[in-house]
């Protein structure tokens, strides 16, 4: 009997290698778990159940998969079946990972709770009354709930890190440019990155190794400066850890979250790390505001292709072209994409460009410099991933600004194009707390090393208490 709740991807690979389970048996165990628990969790939009000899995987439904519907959680893409594979899906296929299914998300990756999905919310395996975070909530819930050994998500403002935090799993947002965006339904091109969601840091490094590296189809990708190292060590001797004051003392951070994070920081010190307080004042002050100009601006342009002419939803309109566009988009997009299209269109408009989009790009440079200066002194910066643990479904649904604050601490590093790893570091009120580790560009190996050592020392049990 395969315990999918407990089994890591490395464990699963071990079963296959040793011949203790066949690929079909392994995938079958996950499909059984999906059948048993997904009616409650709704982590999946499509269950595919491919056969194969490798460790199966779930893809967030913005990841284009040839011949498998890809909706991006939006009605605008209902009926669309891609004719090509995204680069990450192709690399997973080459690595022999069969697809379990496509996971739920906030519509077009816009949101922090997966409540914005046009197909209904996903529930948190730790407490089904609560959100799994977002936008990669389906992937995080699938891994936490034993419905997939590992999964891919995408992260624009924190959409891998934050749901990983809320679901008690490990999530990596890689350095911008290390993972191809080819075939990822675009939200904000200068910020979107694909990242793995896994039960352990080692699993995470293994999946990152499969998907990372330059892609001729994505001009913004680069070759990794060094190969991915699967972490092994358990001490942190000589690692310089900075604790940005503003990110650890920001208004709105739950005391329980702070307590867990502080405990993890003390543990790092015990493992040999040099820990010191530091400061990123402007990144925290301006990061969020800046993000909500850049991301909607790019989104307003990226979403223009959904016009009902070539694929996806087309409104039944008798009339002129403008009516076809307007009706199709009115019916196809939910409230959040509409809100961001309006924000972004405004930010790019003649007469406003310099004050909004132009200014935000300048601030972005300031944020990058501030981080670069910090990394002259530190190898890693730490903070909570999310200011809170998983909140109740519906709690923030009516208040977009409160929802946006969920990404307050993940956004600054994203704006600077830097990698960030979220690992579970404890519980607050019985719900997981995530620790965010941020490093300079291409420092994924360092993040894996620190994350792995802390993971071992923390001994966090990733199986949700109510399912043990």
């Amino acid at each position: 009997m395969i315990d999918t709740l407990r089994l890591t991807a490395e464990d699963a690979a071990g079963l296959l290698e040793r011949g203790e389970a066949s690929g079909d048996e392994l995938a079958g165990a996950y499909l059984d778990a999906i059948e048993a628990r997904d009616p409650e969790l709704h982590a999946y939009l499509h269950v595919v159940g491919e056969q194969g000899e490798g460790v199966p995987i779930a893809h967030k439904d913005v990841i284009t998969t040839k011949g498998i519907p890809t909706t991006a959680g939006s009605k605008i893409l209902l009926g669309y079946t891609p004719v090509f594979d995204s680069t990450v899906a192709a690399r997973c296929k080459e690595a022999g990972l069969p697809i379990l299914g496509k996971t739920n998300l906030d519509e077009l990756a816009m949101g922090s709770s997966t409540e914005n999905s046009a197909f209904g919310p996903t529930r948190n395996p730790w407490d089904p009354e609560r959100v799994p975070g977002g936008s990669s909530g389906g992937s995080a819930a699938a891994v936490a709930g034993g419905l997939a050994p590992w999964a891919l998500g995408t992260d624009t403002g924190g959409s891998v890190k934050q749901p990983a935090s809320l679901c008690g799993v490990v999530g990596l947002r890689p350095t911008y440019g290390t993972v191809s965006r080819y075939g990822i339904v675009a939200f904000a091109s200068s910020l979107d990155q694909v990242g793995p969601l896994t039960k352990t840091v080692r699993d995470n490094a293994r999946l990152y190794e499969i998907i990372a590296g330059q892609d001729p189809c994505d001009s913004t990708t680069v070759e990794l400066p060094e190969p991915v190292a699967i972490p092994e060590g358990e001490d942190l001797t000589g690692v310089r850890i900075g604790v940005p004051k503003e990110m650890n003392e920001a208004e709105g951070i739950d005391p329980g979250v702070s307590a867990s994070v502080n405990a993890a920081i003390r543990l790092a010190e015990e493992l040999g790390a040099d820990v010191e307080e530091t400061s990123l004042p402007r990144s925290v002050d301006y990061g969020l505001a800046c993000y909500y100009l850049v991301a909607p601006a790019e989104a307003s342009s990226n979403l223009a292709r959904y016009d009902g002419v070539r694929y996806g939803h087309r409104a039944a309109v008798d009339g002129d072209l403008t009516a076809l566009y307007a009706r199709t988009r009115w019916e196809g997009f939910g409230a959040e994409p509409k809100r961001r299209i309006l924000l972004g269109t405004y930010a790019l408009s003649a007469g406003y460009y310099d004050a909004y989009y132009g200014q935000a790009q300048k601030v972005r440079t300031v944020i990058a410099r501030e981080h670069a200066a910090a990394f002259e002194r530190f190898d890693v910066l730490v903070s909570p991933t999310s200011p809170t643990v998983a909140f109740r479904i519906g709690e923030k649904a009516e208040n977009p600004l409160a929802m946006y604050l969920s990404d307050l601490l993940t956004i600054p590093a994203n704006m600077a194009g830097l990698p960030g790893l979220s690992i579970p570091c404890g519980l607050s009120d019985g719900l997981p707390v995530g620790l965010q580790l941020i490093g300079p560009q291409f420092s994924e190996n360092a993040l894996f090393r620190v994350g792995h050592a802390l993971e071992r020392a923390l001994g966090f049990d990733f199986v949700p208490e109510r399912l043990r």
Partner: protein
Amino acid sequence: MNGWEPVIGLEIHVQLKTRTKMFCRCENVWGEEPNTRTCPVCLAHPGTLPVPNKTAIEWTVKLGLALDCEIAERALFHRKNYFYPDLPKGYQISQYDVPLCSEGRFVVPGPDGDREIGIVRAHLEEDAAKTIHVGGAAGRIHGAEYSLVDFNRGGTPLVEIVAKPDVRSGEEARRFLQLLRQTVIELDISDAEMEKGSLRCDANVSVRKAGEEGYRTKTELKNMNSFKFVADGIAVEVERQIARYQAGEEVMQQTLHFDPQTGTIAPLRSKEEAHDYRYFPEPDLVAVAPPADMVERARAEIGELPAARIRRLEAEVDLDLAYGLVTSGRDALYARVPGDDRRAVANVLMNQLAAAGVDPAAVDGAELGRLVAARETIPRQTFLDALGASADPDFTADPYLAETTVSDAAALDPVIDGILAANPGQVEAYRGGKEGLLGFFVGQVMKETQGKADARVVNERLREKLNA
């Protein structure tokens, strides 16, 4: 113009004949079955990304150098956002504030010496698809029953050249265009055929009082698809504007369409009216930094420019012949043909040799020189036959030169007398005032002598005899 000065700014689009499209690998061809040269990238399927065509960049640099432009060290692509079915992404990837080429000039020899037309910029962009509107008025979308889109052209590379408003007449605009066309043909980067749309010209036209500072309201003349239409359209619009001012009326800023059949100008209902294109840097692409070796290679491939050759030739022939030779690509052969009478050489090249349809590159200049020198002394038909054969391998003028014209009056008189005797009616009519019949008699003599009679002598003798 009675004191009015036309001010004309040209915008030229040149379609590059690269093997593949600008941002995908689809074949870049003209005239194929609609929608057979498409892929997910140029159809803007979700998640697809552009990959720039290096050849297109190199060719644009080459053209920029020929236009004496500065080449940007780091040029940027921007998105130009608007909705239209010919634009599948909802934006066109173009260039905005940092184009590949800027600040150049293009010399146009004219009757009053060289005119230097400033070049504002030459930038690279992707072409839109082709829309075909069925039903309704004149192939416009307004009032059409339905519209079809052919994406074969969508995403093909296009260079836009914007000239400063330095052109002063429709004729000058025509010369500018002819020279530009010849330049891109010699650079071997485009077919530059106006009928096919691979060379397109729009003109911004205004007029002002001679000596007046600044510019008055301009109109935009769109899509004139031949050199003649460019010259005629501008001339008509200039006259229209002058007439309005002279009648005490104003000129309205609008987009106009020149109808060459009626020679009239009408306002065009345009998709581009009053648009805010919300330009912003294309986040899916990195800056284009043309490498120094590429720029040098491009520079080395540029030969002597057509304008410089026209200036040299103008001293030997006249301006029109010089333009004709150079813009038909016949000036290389002209240079290889010896002979003191340069105008005669030029005339033969531009008229009879062109009519014979032979490839100038295959013609032996020395042999052709012998033919031109003998053009008065050999029969006309023999001369034309020789030109027709002049591109054959191993062509020699000898057998043609052996046939001489019969110019001896003593030899021709019996033939002429016979003709007159055989046509008493026509002789009567001629003498009665129908002098146009002279051609008839000349023709009869030529027929009788198998074209060997010297037409000048025949004319003389006929007149003399008929008027006797």
